């Protein structure tokens, strides 16, 4: 979904209400991690042609960060979740 996003809190909303950050990168490294891990986290991206997880912020609505699972070829979104759920899954 690149025209409309089904916000889990607000329902169907237009692209205009969102601010997009980009790919959900590798999880933020732990405090003691080395520079290579940080470089990977900050700069490297899978950037797949197909299924992609990415951060959208509902800045014009509930102001929650969401994670969209969206296909970069078809623009179809299979899932939208609140991004706070990511960390408990080891993903943020």
């Amino acid at each position, binding site marked *: 979904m690149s*025209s409309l996003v089904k916000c889990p809190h607000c329902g169907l909303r237009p692209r205009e209400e969102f601010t997009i950050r980009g790919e959900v990168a590798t999880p933020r490294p732990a*405090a003691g991690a080395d520079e290579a891990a940080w470089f990977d986290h900050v700069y490297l991206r899978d950037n797949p042609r197909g299924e992609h997880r990415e951060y959208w912020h509902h800045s014009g609505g509930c102001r929650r*960060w969401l994670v969209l699972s969206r296909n970069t070829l*078809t*623009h179809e979104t299979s899932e939208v979740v609140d991004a706070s759920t990511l*960390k408990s899954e080891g993903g943020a």
Partner: protein
Amino acid sequence: MTSFRIDGGTLIDRNDVRRFTFNDEALTGFGGDTVASSLLANGKQLVGRSFKYHRPRGILTAGAAEPNALLTIGRDGRRGPNTRATMAELFDGLEARSQNCWPNVNFDIGAMNGVLGPLLGAGFYYKTFMWPAAFWEKVYEPLIRKAAGLGRASYDPDPGYYEKCWAHCDLLVIGAGPAGLAAALTAGRAGARVVIADEGAHLGGGFLAEGSPLGGKPADAVLADIVGELHALPNVEIKKRTTVFAAYDDQVFGAVERVQKHLPEHEINPHRAMERLWRIVARKVVLATGAEERPIVFGGNDRPGVMMAGAMRTYLNAYGVAPGKRVALFANNNQAYQTAMDLEARGIDVAAIIDPRTCPNTGYDGKARMIAGAMVRDTAGRKAIKSITVRHDDGRDEVIAVDALAVSGGYSPIVHLACHRGGKPVWSDEHVGFMPPESTDGMTPCGAVAGKTGIAACFAAGGAAAVTALAELGVMGEAASLPDIKQGDEKTDHIQPIWSVPSSKGKAFVDYQNDVAASDITLAMREGYDHVELAKRYTTNGMATDQGKTSNVNAIGILAENKGVSPGEIGTTTFRPFYTPVSFGALVGASKGMEFQPVRKSPLHGWAERNGAKFVETGLWYRSSWFPKDGETFWRDSVNREVKAVRSKVGVCDVSTLGKIEVFGADAAEFLNRVYCNAFLKLPVGKARYGIMLREDGFVYDDGTTSCLGENHYFMTTTTALAAGVLTHLEFCAQVLWPELDVRLASATDQWAQMAVAGPKSRDVLAKIIDEDISNEAFPFLAAREVSMFGGRLKGRLFRISFSGELAYEVAVPAGYGESVADAIMAVGEEFGITPYGTEALGVMRIEKGHVTHAEINGTVTPADLGMGKMVSVKKDDFIGRVMNLREGLVDPDRPSLVGIKPKSPSDKFATGSHILNPGDAVSLANDQGYVTSMCHSPTLGHAIGLALVKNGPSRHGEEVVIWNGLAGTTVNGILCDPAFVDPENEKLHA
């Protein structure tokens, strides 16, 4: 002038006579006419000139695909170039003009290009105009540009109001022909929310062109019944004059409604939109866009008087306009024969029917002479057709005198909207056309776009399509039906593809508007541009305002024929939005001029206005930038006075636009400690601290102060520019990175009116309105807390912080009270010589003090670059940006770092954005030492001062440099110095 108006015409109202002008000639038409139908009725066959060869052109179609009849309609602010005469409704007083001709449409000098035709074949530009090198811009291109373009844009402001809307529906029906009407009726009766949109002024599509009765009833009466029922259904929204121009993701459709474009000036309601953009959110879609009749490519096929057969039928039946007195038909399909029958029914002489099929089984039983197995190879006539040359199957030529020729080469389904989201149309040998793609993403094509012919068949298909779509939504529906009509004759039609007439004499046009002939397509192939996209780009076929609606399939056919493959193997070029062109006005809506972006106003805006402020746009805000007094003619006079007043007495400045964020929660301190690079864990209640926020890549993001107002309650300020960005960043940290922390963020920017009260007398002023002890002991530098004001009548927040470098406070009060409090401060401050000051004076004072803003924090600096490297905690094991801040490139000693800079000679001036060179060095990028980030005239020091980022800056204080401004052609000798020009020991701050 002969009138071609005859009896009949279901759409026109003969009692409503409308006057209009065409190229300054006064003409009349009727209500219900299009500009095209009224021109034809007036015998105007020649209406425009083509783009490249300036050939005379007439009206080809009766709809949106029109490639020729583009006129400039209207005058002054309402002048619309390139308007399709076939779509523009006639109103009283309309002014229409031909384009692309000089001196006039009848005698056009540009037609000389036609003589050079052989030289100007496809791609000739690319092979020439290269010699000599300098001549392209100076000689050739200006000549080409002189000839470029169609209509002329108007500089006059557009007086029209425009707007944008959202619409929601269960079923969007695109096209209100027989299929679309049936779909809408079916869904409407079933109770679904329906939007039906049609680009025309009238619902009906194929009904409108129909001259014969349907089931014993006139076609227009059948149509009236259907439309009447639709209007009566409250759940059906009918949008006429509305073109669905694009299909976007998630079933969002762009549509433009021409609300008042068809009205004369005096009937236009200024409060209503001229055009309205609709974003339609549909759960399901029925695509009933119909099919476009294809021209046939033959010699002289562009002569005025040559017209699509279906269009001719529309003009005849809907508008009561005869195409001529003696008409021929050139067609390769049975459907087109209906035109001959209708012409004859109106008593118009059909001279001949030329059909390339050898023994067509058409069922035609009219009077016209049938010439089977033959093709039209040429036409004659200077500005309108006089005769056609027919090549018989035995190779014999015959010239037949005609004054109009109807042409039909088959039908191309209008599949655009089914393909905007990446779908590829599919070639059908049966239908001799590209059909909508199989996977249509919630969209059901039906009717002519799906290959049906005939009103009955299309109507039935529309009803069935709606039933299917509704079922997917869980709604039961019954297909609407037409009473008592026999099925269409689609099965009996046999179209014989004919892409171009091989015996064509002279230019045979594929793309009329861009003057692309069949020979251009074959030339492109010969030169290797044989991919359909390359052929398009090389010849410009299909790139005109009609986007190839009548030409693309013929071009593909010619490519296929020459390669010996099926058109399906050639494929189409990509169908892109927009289906027909959409005005900027509609896409912009009301967001224009001063309403381009909303305005944010400070709660102290009124106060500043009353004090004579000049405002400056800062993002969306208007900020007071200086406060001129009588006699001050130059802004800097006011700024100098304001600075001096603050430095010597006291001033008040609106700082309400700073971002303000309330931070709550048991883990708020921990959170702040992680988002700032300096320590925040031990900030005591009642204290403020300056903080630097890094991005995760280690560069400085923003700075500001954060105060601890209570246990687990902090108040953060950000810069004005990044207020929204910082909040978004903090929300990311809180929600995504550390959801386990109890931290709750609330934007409070708009709740508070905040004023900086600065200067040696600031304490004296504030003591008069603040109830509590604010002496240096009781309220020292960086104190911050809630205070009682005006004898307990108001609660505010007081912060002892300073951007100016003076003894200073920021006081925040609930926004509604802001103006009263500012007035009070001015009143109590009068005895101390208080003055309001703006952002300009604030800017001067912060430069004098060496404080940085986003002029320095430009996204590429580190804290160390700003001389604040020591603030970066080495004790904290984690904060945003910690690790990346340590990269080699970020600690490189050669990095440009903050210094002050001043002219060697105090009278010299220099500009921000000047670069720094070492004395004696050559002017080159390699010798660049850095640049001036900020500068001002310092009224305190009496000369220009600046801040700069210079390689190794801090170790070079006292060094002489060259301040180089090549843009202005100036060089000034400067001296690098400490950035704190005023009070480097911070004595004033702590006073």
